[in-house]
């Protein structure tokens, strides 16, 4: 064993390296080493040594994975004991500005990127990978994906894995529904388990207005074939024993919603793509675009230029600065959302529970951890990926209010990711008005993971057949200038 918390053997590490996971963050995610109760204290150096030997990495290329707070597992009750000042802007975060390496990444490959490709997709998160996968299924394999970090570095590797059909608009309901259908078949298609567990989503409403919103949403869901039920307090307690329902007026439940294991999704798509020769260039940054006659001719990177027919911007919350390199202004704003994971516990929590008023959500992962988060209205916009104690305090208070028996359960690890927020909480899709061969695929406001399989399927069809699809006109970037907003209000986290 190299990691006795998670039963990871030296052979498991070697196998991960053989599969191409040659940086420590990726080996951690693929094997699970360093994610247990000791958080890598026992095994980090052993795995690094194995990696240096097996992958023949030079020592300066062996970087530790980011050590996440807290330093030791710490009970929710202690974090909940910290008073929170509600209207103070959330500042700072740890680890100190090292979460994202600025400039050239030390693990940037020495070889140049391919000189040309039919399609260049910027961002190998769930959106970019799902799109490439769907293009591949339609026979388009001359595709290069550019990713500035390791696979799973962005928001696709940082989310809670919730998937739900309970949305506030017909379009989102339909997309999420299709996504869940595709997720069910994912393992058959790619040979990788994503552990979809349909334990349902249990929404709780405290305030009168939020309760009304739940009622309206349930009606909409039922009209579109989603069996959302409104529940009494007792009904909700039957689903989650021990739930206090303190201050809650109404609950809504759809049993087909659930949680998946996000990382496996990226690995599954990536493995399928690599088999067909699609290039996924990690640790590679986009530095600019070459344009002429109102079209993108080349995508410039820190590993050379790629001539292309079409470029797709699918970099989530990192999209606006990349779009700016092409002279395009996107209205998206990154907002930090923090999340944490508890120690592993035996299964006790079926659904994902969310208090819609506060944005608190929590669910139990396949490995038994309680994974959850809570948005903070005082969070200023900006690309900040550090973690705060304020979050731990607010989350612990919110969680213990509803599940007081968890007070001595310990937080193991916290991290954050950016929500890619647009003015109307709806995505930006389709052609860029000023640069028609630069396609937009961002702005999913923290909920892109669950939408990606369905959106990518539609987008690949639209790209390959040229048949009009209202998704790419309704959600086009031009709607902001035209004042034609598409509002969605069932946003949580």
């Amino acid at each position, binding site marked *: *064993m*190299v990691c*006795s*918390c*998670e039963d990871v*053997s030296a*052979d*498991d590490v070697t*196998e991960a390296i053989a599969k191409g996971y040659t940086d420590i963050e990726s080996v951690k995610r693929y094997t699970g080493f360093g994610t*247990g*109760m000791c*958080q890598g*204290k*026992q*095994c*980090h*150096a052993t795995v690094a*040594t194995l990696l240096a030997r097996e992958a023949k990495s030079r*020592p300066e290329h*062996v*970087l*530790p994975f980011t*050590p996440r707070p*807290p*330093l*030791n597992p*710490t009970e929710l*009750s*202690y*974090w909940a*004991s*910290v008073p929170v000042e509600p209207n*103070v802007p959330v*500042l*700072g*975060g*740890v*680890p100190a500005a090292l979460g994202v390496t600025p400039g050239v990444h030390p693990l940037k490959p020495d070889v140049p990127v391919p000189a040309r490709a039919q399609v260049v997709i910027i961002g190998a998160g769930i959106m970019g990978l799902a799109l490439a996968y769907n293009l591949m299924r339609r026979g388009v394999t001359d595709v290069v994906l550019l990713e500035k970090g390791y696979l799973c570095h962005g928001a696709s590797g940082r989310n809670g894995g919730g998937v739900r059909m309970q949305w506030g608009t017909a379009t989102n309901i339909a997309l999420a529904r299709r996504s869940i259908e595709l997720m069910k078949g994912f393992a*058959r298609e790619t*040979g990788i*388990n994503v*552990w979809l567990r349909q334990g349902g989503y249990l929404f709780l409403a405290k305030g009168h207005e939020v309760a009304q919103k739940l009622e309206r949403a349930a009606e909409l869901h039922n009209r579109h074939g989603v069996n959302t039920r409104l529940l009494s307090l007792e009904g909700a307690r039957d689903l989650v024993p021990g739930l206090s329902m303190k201050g809650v007026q109404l609950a809504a439940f759809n049993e087909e919603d659930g949680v998946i294991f996000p990382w496996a999704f990226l690995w599954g798509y990536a493995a399928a793509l690599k088999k067909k020769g699609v290039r996924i260039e990690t640790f590679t940054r986009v530095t600019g675009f070459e344009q002429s006659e109102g079209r993108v001719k080349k995508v410039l990177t820190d590993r050379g230029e790629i001539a292309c027919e079409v470029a797709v911007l699918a970099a989530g919350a990192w999209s606006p600065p990349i779009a700016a390199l092409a002279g395009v202004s996107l209205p998206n704003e990154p907002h930090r959302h923090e999340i944490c994971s508890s*120690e*592993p*516990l*035996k*299964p*006790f929590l079926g659904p994902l529970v969310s208090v819609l008023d506060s944005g608190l959500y929590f669910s139990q992962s*396949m*490995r*038994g*951890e309680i994974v959850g988060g809570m948005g903070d209205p005082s969070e200023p916009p900006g690309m900040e990926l550090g973690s*705060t*104690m304020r979050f731990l305090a607010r989350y612990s208070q919110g969680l*213990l209010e509803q599940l007081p*028996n968890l*007070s*001595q*359960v*310990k937080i193991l690890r916290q991290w954050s990711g950016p929500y890619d927020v647009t003015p109307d909480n709806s995505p930006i899709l389709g052609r860029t008005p000023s640069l028609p061969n630069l396609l937009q695929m961002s702005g999913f406001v923290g909920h892109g993971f669950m939408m990606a399989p369905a959106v990518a399927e539609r987008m690949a069809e639209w790209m390959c057949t040229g048949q009009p699809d209202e998704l790419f006109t309704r959600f086009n970037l031009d709607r902001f200038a035209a004042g034609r907003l598409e509002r969605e209000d069932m946003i949580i986290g």
Partner: protein
Amino acid sequence: MPRLDAEGTDISIELDGQAYPAKAGEPVACSLIAAGEPLFARSVKYHRPRGPYCFAAACSSCLMRVDGVPNVFTCRTAAKQGMRLERQNAFPSARLDMFAATDWVFMKGMNHHELLAGVPVAQDVMAVVARKLAGLGKIPDAPGPAREPALVQHAELVVVGGGVSGLAASQALLERGVDHLVLEREAFSGGRAAYGVPESHAVELPLPSPRVRYGHNVMGLFEDGRGRFLAVLANERLIQLYVKRLLVAVGSHPPLPAFANNDLPGIYAGRAVSRLLRRHRVLPGKRIAVVGEPGEAARLAGLVESFGGEPVAVGTEPVAAHGLNAVSSIEVKRRSGEHEKVACDAVAVCASGSPAFELARQGGARVVFDGTRFIVEADAEGRTAHPGVFVAGEQVGPCSVAESHERGRRVGVAL
């Protein structure tokens, strides 16, 4: 007898409903070892037997459900009369665990990402089974005690760790009249100088500093609009300790060198064995194989012998441990290259520590790989990439107690 003297108050604790003797206040993991009980739990995936390894809350092998609270580090939990311990993840019992079959079936390892993926029905059945088997501890049956509101405190300079280097730095700071605090998670200071593997030549122990706050466990470094602060747990209360400058002197974690069955109960980090002997006066077995790094192994073997144990296979390279629920023999490679199987009751694995770089790194220090371990990058006076973060002792790489003292002193002088 594994317990070497009769000092301390005799109490009784309960493990899975059975009574065991213990000494009040000692780590409860230590009580069980003294009672000849090295099997503490079953592991999360393959249900392999687990028993304490590091005695430093830096592995997960000693976790138990204690008085209804899951996943408690028993190496850090003081024994109390009537304490109820439960082995986790074991069905029907840790000694005879049904699911240990997983370990035999998947002897070559199990890639759960690909296992049965896409196989109709089997995939769904597996998902249900995997969910049922997941996790470690059972959730508590009732809410825990109410906590007092967190305290807010301020300090100019905080030394984290009251080991040799932290104390040496504190001494230098005291001599120069620099106000500071030393936070030590244990109830005693001196770290490995006090209870580690003895050094080859006598080392002068640093004096306990009057600035040490004992039982102060640093859980994290954070920041907000007011600046940086440490989250410190002390006396069952959280303290938000705002700090201008930080000296990280938290030493190293005991690594687990890779060899077959290195996770069997009865296999301990070398420094765990010296701690059991020197602090708790418990001999974890009669015949102890003292393997690994030859220098440290020879010194530890001397210590084992002086406590009445029988050191074997001293300074050899471990190849594979054997035993059902605890180690009973170990295959080692001697310096001559021969392999040999040696019977033993316990194994002590000597290896230089992996610097505990987490706190320094979170504070903005750079961490680099030296070929075998990650070390914090710092100059001779402990300066890191972050102007407010200094490091001393084993943070910058393995060193003797004497060197650690010297490093701590230099940083203290510079501060």
